């Protein structure tokens, strides 16, 4: 992944409504060069949620609440809200999940 969003900013917050439509996001997400990466993140949020639901079924874990994927120089976190909306947080620096969740509105 090119990481072009993180070339411009150190943190990106995207809020999706229950229909997976962007409800709130910084301007950089809508830049032509970044749209593909934003689309992948939105897709990834649902993709990881699907796996989370599978894991929950297998291990009786309860409803998925969040996920955080840590890679070199990049951390993508997803919060799955009770109203089916989702928050996506992309950061350069690696943070604890508590820190990420507490920073969300």
């Amino acid at each position, binding site marked *: 992944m090119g990481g072009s969003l993180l070339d411009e900013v150190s943190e990106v917050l995207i809020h999706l409504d229950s229909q997976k439509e962007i409800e709130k996001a910084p301007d950089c997400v809508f830049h032509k060069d970044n749209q593909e990466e934003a689309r992948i993140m939105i897709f990834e949020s649902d993709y990881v949620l699907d796996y989370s639901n599978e894991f929950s079924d297998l*291990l009786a*874990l309860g409803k998925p609440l969040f996920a955080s994927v840590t890679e070199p120089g990049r951390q993508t976190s997803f919060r799955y809200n009770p109203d089916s909306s989702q928050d996506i947080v992309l950061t350069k620096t690696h943070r604890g*999940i508590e820190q990420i969740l507490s920073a969300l509105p």
Partner: protein
Amino acid sequence: MTPSSNTAASQLLGGSNSILAELYSQPGVSGCCVQSGSTVLAHDLPFSDDRVDRFASRVDHLLLSYTGVGRTVWHICLGFEKFWVLVLARDRNSLSILLQPNTDTTMIASRAAHLLMGVDIVVEKMQPAPKLPPASVITPLVPSIPAVAETPGIPVAELEQLLTALLSRVMGSAQTSKLIARELQRQGANGVALRPERAREMGLAVIDFIGNRSKRDALASEFLNAIK
């Protein structure tokens, strides 16, 4: 904790000196599953092996979906109502840790990443030493010269002469010469000598042009006897 009863489990989960013993000293750790690819090496999750196998398979699939697009995942933290799951990946080995909610995942991930290196070593040791096949079936690294090459080759001229003698009995000599020359050329008989099996193949290919089946079989038999 009921570690799986296999060698890997005893090395990974069993005893106070096990690789994962340090992990269990961390607060909030409720269980774990160590896997290499989709194969579970050891687990102490309170589920059947079959269910844990399916879990491991899905974990592997999730990790592969990242690596498949060139993304190297260090760890994935999944939060659920009842438990959190921290999945650490290193090459094809991964360690999934079941955590109590609100556990300090940063600390656990740091310790577990170190432990996963230990898992690498255990997995490496577990790889069975390659079994040597019986001496009779060992294939030498340097290919030996085929035995047939040790036998004297059959000169192409000699093959032509033999075929001409045989085919002239049932065909006109001009037709025979053309047929033999054309077929030998088509089959690449350019060398001075041919290996016997190659000479046999070529000769039979020429004899195959004889339309009459009984004559063809008789000449083929005579040819094979002559070429030995």
